[in-house]
């Protein structure tokens, strides 16, 4: 199989106006990926599937990733000229910057005909709140059907063009997207026999007067020194 940057170059040459970026993977696995822009993603996917050199006829895995907004504090060294004419003083200036979050969909493509792969493609939404639409690749690979429904269910990415976009795992009345990093569990830890810190915090919200220590309902003998 040709290298990923060659594929990218071919894609860029073929689809004018499309932006295809190479996302490098620093880990030992070194599975690099192509970041597609949503506007052209389906055309590119179709090309990847039908191109005779690639024939990526099998989309093995489709998954979502949540990248929440990150507040990044950058420290910059700024040299301030001393008005008194002395040597320039170097001070540190902190700037806070919120890196916008996004939802990402990752697809792992293989070729069953030519037995190569994977080619990893990914798409990102504009943000995590209202612009969460991505083109569905189900019309290209039917195997994305349930997986995209699952991503829609758990991450809230809306796949345009999906034939039957409903929640897959949670019930239809459910409102949240539980795999997002900022999802908060419902408070149903009313009573836990082994109170760990997180559980305890929840329990406190439910019980105004915390009881005294009684870890086991069975009688506890005196602790020997």
């Amino acid at each position, binding site marked *: 199989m040709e290298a990923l940057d060659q594929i990218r170059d071919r894609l860029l040459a073929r689809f004018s106006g499309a932006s295809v970026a190479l996302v490098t993977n620093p880990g030992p696995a070194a599975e690099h990926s192509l970041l597609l822009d949503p506007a052209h993603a389906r055309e590119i996917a179709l090309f990847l599937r039908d191109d005779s050199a690639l024939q990526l006829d099998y989309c093995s895995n489709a998954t979502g990733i949540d990248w929440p907004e990150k507040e990044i504090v950058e420290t910059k060294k700024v040299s301030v000229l001393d008005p008194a004419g002395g040597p320039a003083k170097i001070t540190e200036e902190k700037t806070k910057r919120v890196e916008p979050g996004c939802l990402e969909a990752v697809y792992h493509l293989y070729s069953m005909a030519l037995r190569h792969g994977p080619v990893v493609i990914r798409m990102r939404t504009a943000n995590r709140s209202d612009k969460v639409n991505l083109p569905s690749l189900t019309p290209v690979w039917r195997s994305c059907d349930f997986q995209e429904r699952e991503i829609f269910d758990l991450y809230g990415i809306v796949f345009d063009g999906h034939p039957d976009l409903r929640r897959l795992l949670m019930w239809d009345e459910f409102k949240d997207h539980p795999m997002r990093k900022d999802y908060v569990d419902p408070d149903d830890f009313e009573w836990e*026999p*082994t*109170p*760990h810190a997180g559980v305890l915090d929840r329990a406190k919200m439910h019980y105004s007067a915390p009881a005294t*220590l009684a*870890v*086991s*309902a*069975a009688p*506890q*003998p005196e*602790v*020997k*020194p």
Partner: protein
Amino acid sequence: MLGSGIIKGLAVTAKNFVGSYFVPERMVTEQYPEDRPKLPENYRSFPLLVSETAEDPMGTLRCVACQICEKECPPQCIYIEKSKDKKPDATGKMQLYPVVFAIDTSVCMSCGLCAELCPFDSIKMDQVFEVAATNRFAGLLLNREQLAKSNAYYHSIRPVEAAEVDARLAADRQAAEAKAKAAAAAKAAAAAAKAAAPAAQPAPAPVAEAPKPPSPAA
């Protein structure tokens, strides 16, 4: 011919039926309450805490309340509270001990990670599986006293592993004793040297006693 496959099938079941009276391979039922299952040594059900003796289980617990198991337990079913004082452990070192050690067997997934990760060979996996209870809270939440089992019991369920553990602990103890002896000897020698040469500069303190203060820059 139509029916030959069916007749072959009937023959196989008939063979099993007759075989169930004569061939032990074809009558595999173990009559459970009377026939006990033969549990392999590796079998694990729920955790137990090993104590050195059966007479004083609380005093001789190997557990030093390091809370590694509590942190690593995948379903978070272990709950430990450390003691405020110390007492000598299996190797004779002064250690903390658990004031409260509770395992919720109604949550435990019997994965054995706690036993695998315990550096003190204290938490091990039991082989008792008949633990049906009518009350989830009173029956299935095991406290320190219920969890503690003697080393002899541990030997009885896992002879090979327990022997290895004992050998390792004995070696550790010996090493610790030798070290203590050496340290005592060194101390005595140092004291003698100090006595011999009071004017000389004091020997540098052992590293363990005076660790370097962490540098704020790091």
